[in-house]
């Protein structure tokens, strides 16, 4: 059954956009270049249609969209706040309403520490965590295979579509943390899902309706990649890059991110994740479940440079 489903799956497309001169002085980034990278990424996602048409093909105009960021690592290794805001603003140019866009993560404190300025002003782009009064977690458990969790009401109720805007990192247990594992921040008990290289937990979680039915797009923030000893920040193994990875296939996006991490590891003379017995097995589980493509043979990678 599952194999049949896989064979019928079309080849997945992943867009890798490289920038040049994105990092400017004092840790700032060139916002214009970032916007160009978004434009090019969206353009390639859907066979060269305009970025606005691409946005419209993914989201209807009154969609409530969650931009799930990853801020657990603190200011040095979280989804960049400027990137998140630029993306949200840019999406509004494609016809989405600012008040319907929510940049969010597990807690207000973690968002703040990562440099986000919280706001829930009606009509503005929203930024807050699950612990905001009125949000919180569902009382009922969502159960799927190895998973039994309470979902953030942001994921289960507030939004109708989701973008996983994750930072790309090495992970001591899962191998990597990218777009799929980012949704660990959407449940109340992620600490229970780190055994066995987080496998099959990451894939089982992604398969639950609050994620599977809403996830539309993965964007991996590759401006600052932790390629070893993650998910915590270690300057020694952190690489400033100028890359964004886009895909509507969550597995293929992560699989491409994994290859990038392996490349950085090889350049630094580090063993592969497989050699360290932490190959991201969750990707193959996800592929077997039909959630997307992990095998590079079936992933069309389009690379472009700004």
């Amino acid at each position, binding site marked *: 059954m599952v194999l049949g489903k896989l064979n019928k799956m079309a080849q997945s497309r992943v867009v890798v956009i490289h920038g040049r001169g994105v990092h400017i002085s004092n840790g700032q980034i060139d916002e214009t270049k970032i916007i160009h990278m978004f434009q090019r990424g969206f353009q390639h996602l859907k066979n060269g249609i305009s970025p606005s048409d691409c946005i419209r093909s993914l989201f209807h105009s009154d969609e409530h969209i969650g931009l799930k960021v990853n801020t*657990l690592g603190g200011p040095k290794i979280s989804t960049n706040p400027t990137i998140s805001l630029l993306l949200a603003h840019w999406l509004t140019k494609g016809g989405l309403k600012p008040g319907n866009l929510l940049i969010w993560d597990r807690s207000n404190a973690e968002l703040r520490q990562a440099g986000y300025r919280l706001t829930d002003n009606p009509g503005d782009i929203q930024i807050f965590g699950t*612990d905001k009064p009125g949000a919180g*977690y569902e009382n009922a458990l969502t159960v799927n295979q190895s998973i039994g969790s309470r979902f953030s009401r942001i994921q289960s109720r507030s939004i109708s579509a989701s973008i996983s805007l994750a930072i790309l990192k090495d992970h001591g247990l899962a191998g990597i943390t990218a777009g799929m594992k980012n949704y660990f921040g959407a449940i109340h*008990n992620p*600490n*229970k899902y780190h055994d066995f290289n987080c496998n099959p937990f990451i894939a089982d979680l992604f398969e639950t309706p609050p994620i599977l039915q809403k996830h539309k797009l993965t964007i991996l923030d590759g401006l600052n990649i932790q390629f070893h000893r*993650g998910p*915590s920040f*270690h300057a020694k193994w952190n690489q400033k890059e100028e890359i964004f990875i886009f895909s509507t296939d969550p597995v293929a996006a992560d699989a491409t991110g994994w290859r990038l991490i392996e490349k950085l590891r090889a350049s630094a003379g580090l063993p592969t994740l497989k050699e360290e017995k932490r190959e991201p097995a969750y990707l193959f589980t996800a592929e077997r479940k039909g959630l997307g493509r992990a095998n590079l043979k079936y992933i069309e990678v389009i690379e472009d440079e700004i």
Partner: protein
Amino acid sequence: MDRRHFIKTTGGLSLTAGSGLLNTCSRLYAFDTSANLSRKEARYYKKHPDREIECLLCPRFCKLGDRERGYCGVRENIDGTYYTFVYGKACAVHLDPIEKKPFFHFLPQSRTLSLATAGCNVNCKFCQNWEISQVRPEQVEHQDFPPHQVVLTAQKYDSPIIAYTYTEPIVFFEYMIDTSIEAQKAGLRNVVVTGGHINPEPLQDLLPAVDAIKIDLKAFSELFYTEYVRGKLQPVLDAIKIIAQSSVWLEIVYLVIPSLNDSPEEIRQMSRWLKQTAGKDVPLHFSRFYPMYLLKNLPPTPTSTLERCHRIAREEGLHYVYIGNIPGHKAENTYCPQCQKLLIQRTGYSIGEKNLEEGRCKYCGQPIPGIWK
């Protein structure tokens, strides 16, 4: 979790002790709705280079980078130092009868001030208190309840015992041991209700501070522990052995789950091992399972299954075998292993007839092991 839900879920724990007690608790404490976590340095961890740490408290040995939290959800590495967030932060406080823990050979009918914090170092699919055990402290209402206040409260409510229970006390080890030491100084007793998933060193350190430990032995197979507990059996067996060799009173509870851990062979092996390790006098409670949490697809344990477990354990030579969660069953009672006469009659958490004198059978003088005064 909102306040109403909190009271419903955790308050429900003490309903059987009488609604008056629940009201007492509600009046006593104003629950703190802010995160308000403690930041006390944890015991039992090793610092590694690059601000990484390794937790040595339980057999998981969590290795954590900066800003990462352990499996238990209550301990976090902050810049290379490991902290507990639940020191003095109780999320459930009630007055229970000691029989509810259950302890049947430890000060019967005593009132027990029982407390818990959020968190657990396993994830049993049949957890009865998952709404407080399988959450982080930020996700549940809690109150400031430092050790000295716990002791004062126990004294105020004539509770000679403090119980660390409901969730997994191992994860609030520092709070438990400090409170126990203060309680000992005040002449109170301490009892621990635990899954026993703890490393030998912290356990050895805890033993002098407590009077009794009840271990929830969840099965007698590693496979069960892997699949349904997300833990390991062997460290629990090791913990039982260490406690049995100490002067701390030990009782064992075995929750019998239909088709998962109730085979006669498993029960026989477990009973045999228990007798060899802890002796024939260790009380063993076979408890009835009810569908709960992530195991809702199974029926409650049939009485006949519990009776079969009881019979096997008795055949293996254990003297004090009980059946729990079936109020009124005769196997709730304690019988003299010598003359077979009724020593303590129980119905649920209530005690009826009592025929013990100075820890001996009133009829034949047989010494009955336990802490009776």
